[in-house]
């Protein structure tokens, strides 16, 4: 019973968040200057043509009315029609989702896979040269913004080493391996700062755990250093990291939006930016709702995961 209650409560919070986000986006478009009809007509606009197009787009109706009719059709699964392209919003967004998903997935994977061994090694040699050296490098990497790393990568790997063609993005439905290879470099650029932060967090988390009593007990039971590290210490040290990583996913989607510009990748970020410029609010609404959904779901997942790793949190 209490489980059902908890689930209902969580779902309620998710829905409420999405509702608030959707309203905020709609309201923002009402407040900022610019008009989708005018954006489409440009400097050729005559007052008559403008009025006609506004009517066609339904912009002549009051704001609240438009919001609720949009919300209603959303609930029916219809996200409307893009004001600038005349295509359905869902058809425009669905083809972009894999691009951003792969970017985020790759970056998350790189972050997790790289940071754990590095942090473990650092603690193994805590205070020695390797630890200190890596610490400095880590600090440096942490302060490099993704877009700058992206520019450096294009220059170094693209222009000098010619590992990939800058701007030579290939679509995943045309050439999947080519797509994955191209996506690799921006993924690393997005992952780098997150990776450095994870290393720093994990290092201190492991060191903290290593001082606890259960570690001594584990040693006394005849476990080797490695066994203690992987079976006991790491498991506990990872708890704060799980929360960090799940929040990073949301952050990395945002990072992907910027990196998509640097590498000329047509993902969700690109469509979001240009739709904001065109005041194409049905598209903006849908993309932002999608991102908001990912954020709340990741939050939920990290809660569940933490409870799974640490049974004490269950109560």
């Amino acid at each position: 019973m209490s489980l059902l209650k908890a689930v209902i409560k969580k779902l309620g919070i998710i829905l409420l968040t999405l509702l608030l986000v959707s309203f905020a986006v709609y309201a923002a478009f009402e407040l900022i200057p610019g008009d989708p009809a005018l954006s489409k007509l440009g400097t050729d606009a005559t007052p008559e043509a403008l009025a006609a197009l506004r009517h066609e787009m339904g912009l002549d109706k009051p704001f609240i009315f438009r919001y609720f009719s949009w919300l209603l059709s959303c609930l029916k699964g219809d996200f409307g029609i893009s004001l600038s392209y005349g295509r359905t919003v869902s058809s425009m967004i669905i083809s972009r989702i894999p691009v951003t998903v792969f970017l985020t997935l790759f970056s998350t994977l790189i972050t997790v896979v790289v940071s754990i061994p590095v942090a473990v090694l650092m603690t193994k040699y805590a205070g020695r040269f390797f630890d200190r050296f890596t610490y400095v490098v880590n600090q440096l990497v942490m302060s490099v913004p993704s877009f700058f790393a992206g520019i450096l990568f294009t220059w170094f790997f693209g222009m000098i080493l010619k590992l990939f063609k800058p701007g030579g993005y290939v679509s995943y439905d045309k050439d999947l391996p080519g797509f994955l290879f191209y996506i690799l470099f921006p993924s690393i650029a997005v992952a780098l700062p997150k990776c450095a932060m994870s290393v720093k967090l994990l290092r201190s988390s492991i060191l903290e755990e290593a001082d606890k009593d259960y570690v001594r007990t584990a040693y006394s039971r005849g476990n080797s250093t490695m066994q203690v590290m992987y079976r006991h210490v790491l498991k506990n040290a990872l708890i704060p990291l799980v929360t960090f990583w799940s929040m990073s996913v949301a952050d990395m989607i945002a990072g992907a939006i910027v990196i998509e510009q640097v590498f000329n990748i047509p993902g969700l970020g690109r469509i979001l930016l240009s739709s904001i410029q065109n005041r194409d609010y049905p598209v903006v609404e849908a993309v932002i709702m999608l991102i908001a959904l990912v954020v709340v779901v990741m939050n939920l997942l990290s809660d569940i995961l933490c409870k799974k790793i640490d049974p004490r949190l269950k109560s």
Partner: protein
Amino acid sequence: MKKGRVLLAALFVTMAAALGGCAGGKTAETPEDHITIGIPQDLDDGLDPHKVSAAGTKEILFNVYEGLLKYDENGALNPAIAESYDVDEDRMGYTFHLRSGVKFHDGSSVTADDVVYSLKRLSGADGSDPLEEALINIADIQKKDENTVYVKLLKEDPDFLCYMTDAIMPASNADPETNVIGTGPYKFVSHTPQESVELEAFDEYWGEKAHIKNVTLKIISNADSIVMELKGGTIDMFCRLSDTQVAELEGSDFNIEEGAMNLVQALYLNNDFGPFEDERVRQAICYAIDPEEIMAYVSGGKGSEIGSAMFPAFGKYYDPALNDTYNKDTEKAKALLNEAGYGDGFSFSITVPSNYTPHVATAEVIVEELKEIGVTAEIKLVEWDTWLSETYMGRNYEATVIGVDASPLTARALLDRYASDANNNFVNFKDPDYDTALAAALSETDDAVQTEYYKECLRLLSEHAASAYIQDLPSFVALNKKFSGYKFYPLYAQDFASLYYTGE
């Protein structure tokens, strides 16, 4: 830990697969069959040729759609779908003789019905809103026979034929917004929003066929990556590069062609804003601004000075003498300000759309120049959409730097916006003499006399300092040395059909 290993393995497998796929390469078509052209903006205002407004969309549809007549690179009107035309004695009726054997991209032949349908759609004679404002002047459109269409006007219009370059589309096409069927040298294959547009040469084109079979237009929204993509070889051509981008391309595989943007770039002054209501203040601003200095800073000294609302490509109307109406003279500017009661200077803001780097750079020079006469200008960067709604439509601004183009390619398109009651008179210029001269020009049918009236208009704009006219910006095109044949048009048109392959 087991889980970690699985993840690691998965990652390596994916990477290996990716690397393998890359090494394998693709079997490409022969190089002369394909060109990739970078374009800065998407075709996001639709694809219906009668409805699109963005210059970037129009210049691409130029390859796909044609009108009864078509502009060439000199701005002259040539027959296209119409083989010839006759004009009635009273210049109120036009008979168009259609060329035989002109095919639409879907394989059907162009008929008189298609022409009547398209013209009715444009002029609103089918009962809908007119899509080309100037064509409400059409009284009647008749199909005389299968190959002849007759158009009767309500009143004489010397510019009428310019509008006959508007697209002819098949009457059977119910959805021109997504189903693109024209008669041009290239047919439209596909459009992936924000990614690319594919065009393919049309084998049954009536005129000289396109040389390059496939054209990919790649949308590059990030201006900083243009040079990189050109150098990296992902695009073969890019139009309207800046002076700095051209400098970065030095020594690479690109030929740089230089033309003009065909714009009237000016510091447009809102004539309804306090100080600018006084003609002397506007003149003072003109005296303070030196186009040469701006060109040196903005485009490495390239560009052509203008003294009124006309660019040099329009040789018929362009009067170089007007460039000297206000040669830089700080003392005179100060004296004029003093006379107008602004001896201590004043301050105003210059609104500039942030996406147009040359306009922003121009505004920066102007700010410095105005300091010399004690006027403080402050740059206000806005987004293009905000500029459109607040500055252009709302006229809620003090001054702005922008370039105005002629669409269609007539003097009227540049000049009728200065009529006191014009709905696109965004500078709020009001002068009875100008209104008289413009009205005389519009109703005049003798070309020589009409030209004189238009020149009079230009003189008045300069004299009354409607705004501070600066220059027609230079336009640089980078074209990979493998290709040649780029043509500059005095209007928004990119003619891909003229490009050809010259060899590696």
